[in-house]
């Protein structure tokens, strides 16, 4: 979110300036515009698309991915990446399902704590030991999934429906499913932190140029460590909520969700190179993926693989648009 002062060249309508303007608008609002178009088109095409029930279903489907995507947005804007979130989600779910037999409040706290700690560890390796985020979190993806599988004995652990813990997945607040409430809170808080706090500004600064941020005396290491810790914590929360929703902690849950989360963030206009992006864009990206799935279910005759094809297609269109509009000299 860079607000530029009025550029004198704008009056002349220089091609480069025009292109930059258009790009900035598209990057910030493009996903929202596409989202609105897709919603309008679907509402006209399918009779039972624009019903309260179906809309809530769409948002609920996206809620678990949404929680992960908030953390991912911070990490990606800071110029990093977190591939471990899918495995974290599985670990969070398994831990919740295991501990809920002992005490249900602990089932909500422990996954967040453990996944947060793993996130902290990854953050320390990345920020302090200067290891590549891609590799550290790739190791996290493998190792944490292995841990989740080992803890669960490689099969889902059931959660009794009578436990108060189930409310966090299946209950409602003011007619809204609880996971949706969690997601909305995460997006609102995430958006405010990113735009309105110095922490958010430091994230942008690091993504723009880590070297400059360091030279300005900004707490680069601490900021990065916090970003990965938050990403892990949110993934753990998402896992616990998903376990409550499905009444089971599945160690195979969240497989390849890191890719969905990255797609949602990138479709939402956040640059994978870091330094630019928005939480609102990510929200639109998550909803787009979720609507895509919903539409495919509505049509009914299409296989689930059509969704993969369409997501891949969406991703490439967005990235191509970004690449053409920011056309720099490519060697």
């Amino acid at each position, binding site marked *: 979110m860079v607000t530029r002062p009025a550029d004198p060249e704008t009056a002349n309508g220089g091609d480069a300036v025009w292109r930059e303007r258009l790009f900035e608008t598209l990057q910030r609002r493009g996903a929202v515009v596409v989202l609105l178009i897709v919603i309008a088109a679907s509402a006209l095409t399918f009779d039972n698309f624009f019903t309260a029930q179906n809309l809530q279903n769409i948002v609920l489907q996206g809620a678990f991915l949404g929680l992960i995507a908030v953390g991912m947005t911070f990490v990606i804007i800071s110029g990093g*990446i977190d591939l471990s979130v899918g495995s974290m989600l599985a670990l969070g779910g398994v831990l919740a399902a295991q501990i809920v037999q002992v005490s249900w409040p602990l089932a909500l706290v422990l996954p967040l704590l453990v996944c947060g700690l793993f996130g902290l560890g990854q953050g320390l*390796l990345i920020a302090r*030991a*200067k*290891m*590549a985020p*891609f*590799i*550290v979190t*790739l*190791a*996290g*993806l*493998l*190792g*944490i*999934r*292995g*841990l989740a*599988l*080992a803890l669960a004995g*490689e099969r889902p652990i059931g959660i009794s429906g009578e436990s108060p813990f189930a409310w966090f997945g299946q209950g409602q607040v003011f007619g809204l499913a609880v996971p949706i409430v969690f997601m909305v809170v995460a997006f609102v808080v995430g958006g405010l932190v990113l735009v309105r706090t110095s922490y958010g500004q430091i994230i942008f600064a690091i993504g723009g140029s880590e070297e400059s941020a360091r030279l300005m005396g900004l707490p680069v290491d601490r900021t990065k460590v916090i970003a990965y810790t938050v990403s892990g914590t949110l993934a753990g929360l998402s896992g616990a909520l998903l376990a409550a929703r499905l009444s089971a902690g599945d160690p195979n849950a969240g497989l390849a969700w890191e*890719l969905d989360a*990255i*797609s949602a963030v*990138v479709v939402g206009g956040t640059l*994978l*190179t870091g330094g630019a992006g928005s939480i609102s864009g990510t929200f639109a990206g998550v909803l787009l993926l979720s609507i895509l799935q919903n539409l495919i279910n509505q049509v009914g005759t299409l*296989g689930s*693989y*059509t*969704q*993969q*094809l*369409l*997501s*891949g*297609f969406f*991703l*490439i269109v967005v*990235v*191509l648009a970004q*690449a*053409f509009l920011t*056309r*720099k000299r*490519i*060697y």
Partner: protein
Amino acid sequence: MRQKGLRTKETWVNRASTVTGALDRSAVTSWVRGRGVYVAFVALVVFNLAITPNFASVATLSNLLIQVSPVVLVSLGVALAIGTEGIDLSVGSVMALASVFLPLYIGYGWPVGIFAALLVGAMAGLVNGSLVAFVGVQPIIATLAMLVGGRGLAQIFAGGQLLIVSDPAVLALGQARPFGIPAPVIVATVAAIVVGFLVKRTTFGRYVVAIGGNRSASYLSGHPVRRTLLAVYAISGLLAALAGIVATARLGASDPSNIGILIELSAITAVVVGGTPLSGGRVKILGTVMGALLIQLIATTFIANNLPFTWAQVFTAAIILVAVYLQKGRGAA
């Protein structure tokens, strides 16, 4: 490239200390760092010889090699992509695509089937390569889109079902044993030698490394940067297709939803553990092959000793972290 500069200086200092005859501790650690994957591999083999029953048997060895063959094939292409400071995440989906095209065209004879499979792999690679070379899309995103979309496409072509392959010539690729050596192992070995030759002995190999070191500098020196990148991703797609064919031949069927799934992670692990830095500028083919063998050996060790397989995954993750941490000292992380 400040990091590269540091590395040069360090090797220079090390060389100086060897010249003076003082083989100090830092020289030893540096030697281990450069060959960590070999040391780890030998250590694990010795451990297995001592602990695992029936480890030193032909059956164990040939199983290990057969299982590792597709990973080796795919890793070679990924190593080239990583060498140019890129990455290829799409290899698993390209395997699935090739695996589907093989039975679709095998009605015209097995050479046509194999050619179609290889062609679709190369095409997928060319799409990746064009996005990277001409449009300037980041490799991770271009190949991520192919990873997501490619498997969907494969399933659409397959109509969401398993396609049986019964052509004996194709099945031989997965199951024959000329001179007692399993065919997949021969395919992987030949591919490794060819790619190794490309990297070490051809100008193409020098271009790959130069682009990974510094893309703009390479362009300004008059290297054919775009053509090289295009070729790198096409080769990676071709190798992935070859891996898909071998896997299909072993299975006797094309299974687009399972073939090559998550293999990109094993490949990246093999490449990185083998000493090729993610930041590009260096390609270690022998190291990559050893990295793939090491990962497979870890899995075999756990299975053979009746340890839960999932802990093998945790152990592999630890190995990755240690390997990359050790390389870091060489400015390679």
